[in-house]
């Protein structure tokens, strides 16, 4: 496989860390060399948070340079748009969970919140493809990350990192107490994609 970059982005508090951990573990299990970097500090308080995964050889720095992400994973629509605009390479892939967390500028009507169509056009400008994930019946918003994970697994966003590898990584990462609930969401997305 040629080296690839995955860029994850969302809002502080959405569980980007777990998503990144499971993906990393899955990539390691598939035999890839992985390095990466997460946001820490102030931004975790409802600011933009990101996580970089760099998979394969001859990548040395922990963060993907702008415009070089093969896959952008957004946990929220505005952040998916920001991630796509700043990080997506030409012809890359964007997968996002379609939830809305309004930033203060939008709440104060100093900025507009993007429509799904606006996001589509940003991705189209890069010649990229866009996949929307949304579950009607998801009770706990802290599991939106697992819904995304299911979708990435089905797509094999990383070569040889498919459903079985990701599921195992999820089982190895999530605390036993909440594993069942997480697996349920994961399987729902996987099964829906089979149909």
């Amino acid at each position, binding site marked *: 496989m040629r080296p690839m970059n995955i860029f994850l982005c969302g809002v502080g508090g959405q569980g980007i860390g777990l998503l990144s951990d499971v993906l990393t573990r899955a990539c390691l299990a598939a035999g890839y060399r992985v390095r990466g970097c997460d946001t820490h*500090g*102030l931004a975790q*308080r409802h600011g933009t948070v990101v996580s970089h995964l760099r998979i394969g050889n001859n990548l040395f720095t922990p963060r993907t340079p702008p415009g070089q992400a093969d896959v952008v994973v957004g946990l929220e629509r505005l952040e998916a748009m920001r991630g796509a605009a700043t990080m997506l390479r030409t012809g890359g892939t964007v997968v996002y969970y379609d939830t809305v967390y309004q*930033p*203060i*500028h939008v*709440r104060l009507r100093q900025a507009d919140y993007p429509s799904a169509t606006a996001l589509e056009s940003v991705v189209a400008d890069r010649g990229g493809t866009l996949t929307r994930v949304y579950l009607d019946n998801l009770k706990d918003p802290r599991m939106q990350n697992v819904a995304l994970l299911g979708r990435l697994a089905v797509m094999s966003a990383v070569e040889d990192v498919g459903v079985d590898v990701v599921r195992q990584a999820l089982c190895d990462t999530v605390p036993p107490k909440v594993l069942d609930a997480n697996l349920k969401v994961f399987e729902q997305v996987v099964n829906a994609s089979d149909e």
Partner: protein
Amino acid sequence: MTNLKTDLIRGDQWSGLVMGNHAVARGMIESGVRVATTYPGSPTPEIAAALSAVPEDVRPYYFEYSTNEKVALEVATGASLNGHLSTVFFKSVGLNVASDSLIQLSLFELIGGMVVVLGDDPGVNSSQNEQDNRHFFRMSYIPMFEPATPTEAYEMYIEASRLSKQYRAPVALRLTTHVCHAKEVVQFSPITSGPPDWTSRFDTENGPYLPLVKWVFPMKKRALEKLEQFEGESNKSRFNEVHAPNSSGPIDGKRLGIISSGLPALAILENLHASGHGIDLLKLGMSYPMPQQALKAFLADHDEVIIVEELDRVMETEIKALAWDLNVSCNIRSRSTRDQLMGEFTPDRTWSLLSDHWPSLFPAQSPVEIPADISPRIAQMCPGCGHRSAFHAIRAAMDDDTIAVGDIGCHSMGFFLPHNIGDVLLSMGHSTATGAGLSINNTRKVIAFLGDSTLFHAGWPGIVNAIINNHSITLFLMENGTTAMTGHQPRPGAGEIGDKIPLKGVFEALGVQFIREVDTYNQGLLTQYAREAIAYDGFALVIARHPCMLKFVRTQRAKVPDFELSHVEIDQETCDQSRVCIEKFGCPSFYTHEDGSVTVHPDLCIGDGSCLKTCPVQAIQRESKRGYK
């Protein structure tokens, strides 16, 4: 994944995915560190998280959160004087606080050894500046390692501690934010050091430990001698090496080279792999003292050399001076624009720098065009945050021309939209003193904010000064009982608010005449107290307290089975769309809609109810009585 609780002290060798900070923590334990101290601050708090994850009864070390970086450094110094390998770690600007004692360290025979770990912050991810602390270690005669990866951070820590013990001198490990937070699989070694030996070995024979008058020069002389010996170590260090990712040879008749260190060196490696050119990279890991022999050889072997470093011109100045002495013909180049003296060097930026000098080898790349109309997203105080409630209530007591001095901590976010409270921010604990200066012969009222952890860190001297000089300002002590911003480390008097050190009692003992204390959710009373305090002639204190709600919710989730949060909701019949909840109170849970209506986002609201009284028409109501009380 790595289980810090057990893996960190595993006796056998193992490998695992870790971040740089955790790799450093393992390096401490393998090195036999017996005393570790810190004051929390990004980018290094995860070192502390790792060290404190190990259960106390099996720790082969003593660890403490000290009240500030200077105290932490002094505790570590004392331990080393007593024969124990010690270590202290803190963030970039923490070194300013610690520097008063740091400067003396190299004069001492530190018989146990001592490693100073510093997290610099190029790119200002979470600091008030991006100061280049390589200067500080030069000023203090302290040798320095600059790792670029978690693996190097671990290996260089062990090497730093070895040299520190051998030379009985302080050695520094300078990390940067994205070395601290980078993740990779690191291979660790077995732990070979035995159980701790707490025998006291302090002996004045190892001194003198009094840098006073006649003793200073011999002590300084010894420090300078050690520095020369460290240069010898640097010359033979395996961490200073030439990388040639592509087969090297002259390009257009010229031999080309690059000198770099830390993360910029990795960015260069990526550039060289991408370009395929036969250019050599001298990567300096033990970067102070500089390895003169390696540098001489590299300059002699190349016709053109570019120095790539972040922030200030530190290596450049010394390498150019060396080249002058050597009278080498090598053409030495460096950064040419002011922009290149700022921010972190990522591969796109180093490519651009190389392109400035060698445009045919590194063709200019066009920057990614980002649409301008994407809304920013700034950090916010959490739903339920007591600080928000406080700012809302205090705003009501302020005049249009009241000057508000902010400080460092979660309450710094009062400066952000929509509160915009906090006009000046200098450093940890500055607010009372800066406010005092602003208040001199000023008809405008001055108020200052200070968090409870920062109060202990550096707040007291300014407060005592304001009391004894009777400066007419109001101090709002924003007490949440923790060090919230950096991840809920305990502050002195840890645990519940006001437990061990009763704050009010301390202020009373200091003779403060005007003291009021109130829970910030009681907004009416807080506004009233704020009015009285601002009108008071002299130093007035309002303790505005409420526990950190992020910490509260996390604790409840961990403790209470099936813990569910309740929410508030907006009665759309009652709501008159005055938007006070959004534009004045500003909880992120309130959502705005195109038709002017406002709703509550159920994913964000924690049902705390601090918003209930802010609505002029009482449209905000409790949805249910579950969970939160």
